[in-house]
């Protein structure tokens, strides 16, 4: 059984009368990527700040690898790699100088520091630009180095706070691939985002946060199941649509069929595994299918269902 790397319970933070985080509890095991999904202002960064030990909490507890953790514990901070939302680099230092500086703060030195710095530069694809000042880097390159700094100390827990904000699609893909790779190496990853696609693509489990409270958490499938909503399949087709609709309605997994002007619309319990049977049935009814579109309930729908507002409000 995988070990729990991060456990936080009952986290609370208030600023005067405004409660930013209320009774937040998260557990992440090694090799797991946990996504904290919520709109801007939901409390993601405040939660992250308490977890990494930047911000003192009002209540609750955090343990890293079983050790109590707070703002003053340097021993547990050594286990964390933190990638803040804003670029946290010194533009007038070179890429390598930035890495070496933060590496030294984490206790690396000498040959180990140089080796680890080179490894990270290789991972983020900046080996050839390492000697140039960060000021000369493109946005995507800076963002990659920014993430690289979080990897220097081979953390047990990697915390990434919206690492793809303001990043071009190509760099975003590279970042997501990197994160997936790191989790594959046994690192526990806490990833905050307000991009539903990223959470769906990257995270083993997702926590939905809004107004400082964790509204729900689980795998994508767990969360979607909460909606008790079926997948929607739209077939663009020619032929005897009425006959095809009749045949499809007899399938156990299909709960409803509508005949539309240029095709059919079906509600299916789980579209993916049943799609071959649906297409075979329409074929037998003499209908030619020109395109298929499957719309599954997604995390956006879950968020809307749980909070009554859209994720990007």
């Amino acid at each position, binding site marked *: 059984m995988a070990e729990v790397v991060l456990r936080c319970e009952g986290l609370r933070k208030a600023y005067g009368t405004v409660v930013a985080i209320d009774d937040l509890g998260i557990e992440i095991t090694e090799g797991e990527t946990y996504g904290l999904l919520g709109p801007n202002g939901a409390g993601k960064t405040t939660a992250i700040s308490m977890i990494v*030990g*930047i911000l003192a909490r009002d209540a609750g507890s955090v343990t890293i690898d079983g050790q109590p953790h707070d703002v003053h514990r*340097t021993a547990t901070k050594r286990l964390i790699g933190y990638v803040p939302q804003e*670029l*946290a*680099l010194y533009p*007038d230092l070179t890429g390598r100088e930035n890495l070496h500086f933060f590496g*030294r*703060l984490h206790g690396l030195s000498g040959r180990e520091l140089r080796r680890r710095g080179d490894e990270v530069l290789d991972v983020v694809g900046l080996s050839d630009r390492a000697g140039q000042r960060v000021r000369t880097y493109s946005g995507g390159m800076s963002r990659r180095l920014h993430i690289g700094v979080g990897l220097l100390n081979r953390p047990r827990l990697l915390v990434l706070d919206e690492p793809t904000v303001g990043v071009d699609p190509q760099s975003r893909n590279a970042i997501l691939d990197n994160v997936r790779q790191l989790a594959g190496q046994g690192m526990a990853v806490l990833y905050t985002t307000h991009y539903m696609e990223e959470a769906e693509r990257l995270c083993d489990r997702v926590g939905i946060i809004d107004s400082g409270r964790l509204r729900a958490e689980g795998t994508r499938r767990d969360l979607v199941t909460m909606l008790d909503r079926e997948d929607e399949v739209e077939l663009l087709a020619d032929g005897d649509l009425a006959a095809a609709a009749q045949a499809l309605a007899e399938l156990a997994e299909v709960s409803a069929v509508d005949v539309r002007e240029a095709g059919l619309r079906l509600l299916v319990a789980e579209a993916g595994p049943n799609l071959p049977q649906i297409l075979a049935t329409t074929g037998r009814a003499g209908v030619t299918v020109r395109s298929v579109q499957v719309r599954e309930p997604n995390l956006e729908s879950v968020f809307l269902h749980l909070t009554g507002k859209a994720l990007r409000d």
Partner: protein
Amino acid sequence: MRQIFVIATKDLRLHLRNSTLLLFGIVLPLGLAVLFSTVLDDPGGGFQARYVVADEDRGPAANAFVTDVLGALTAESTFDVQRVAAATEATRMVDRGAVDAAFIVPAGFSADIAAGRTATLRVLGDVDSPIAAYVAREIAQSYATEVRGGRLAVAVTVAGGGRVDDPAGFAARVQALPPPLTVSAGSTADHELASRTFYPAGMAVFFLFFVAMLSVSTILAERTTGTMPRLLAAPVRRPTILVGKLLGGVGIGLVAMSVLMVSSTLLIGARWGPPLGVAALVTALVLAATGLMALVATAARTTEQATGWMSTLAVLMGMFGGTFAPLARVEGLAVLSYATPHRWFLQGLTDLAGGDLRAVVVPVVVLLGLAAATFSLTLLRIGKLVRP
């Protein structure tokens, strides 16, 4: 401790790559020091007067004035007195600005004095040298007072029933007494630095506070640029971050001061005094400047506010601390200047010019005391600077 040096070294490297900081720390102070010391008078032992005397009388009273009074002045390097034969030539020299003032002793001057008549000693001053001309008038006035004193002595003796067999001889003996006034140029030179040292020192200390301001501003900038959260998340204690950053500021302050001192020595011949004493003074000054600026920054709510307060303080302290002119000459301001590190530094340098290392003890202790107090208060208010 290692982490303090890691942070300080990183900051020092960044400071050395910061053109604004180098402009304020080295280029501006050095440029202004060279300019001021070249263009302006020596603020300390710098009073110089060039006089000419035309003795058309050549009698004993005229000779007493020219030889005893003006002759005594020429013994001091402050005064330069030339002799010319005619009043017209002396007048021409004043008009040309070749001298600051002319003394003209007209023919019959000694005879008038001996006969008890009114004698005239003319002083012509150059309008562009008001101080030197004023001093010339005072010298002449002093001599006139002395002559009157001689006459009075004779008159009182006679009126009191005493016998004066030879009134003219008596008056002459009175006038033959030692010169009525002495001027010492050494008094100012002993207490103020020469311009070639004063201006580099003044500019260095003035701009050092801007260097300190810029280095302290980087603590606040770590917050606005986003690196502070990363520092706070690293396994580093918060006082370590603050001390490391302040140490980086002290480092760049020392670098700037050292470069300025060496450059001004080579370029304009500044003389700083015994290296050990100077090093102690400079180190104490840099610590005090950094501590003071850091403390000011803890009181501000925003980076802009902090920068505004720090720069205002730097300018005011520079002005009242005597970095542009030696305020020891102005009584009220002289007292006020002791409230600034600038004054203690300049005072220390001035006292050190005599070559006695013990002279810097008091200024160094005062500056270190200020540094200790401001650093302590800043550490107590660490949450105002080192926070996400």
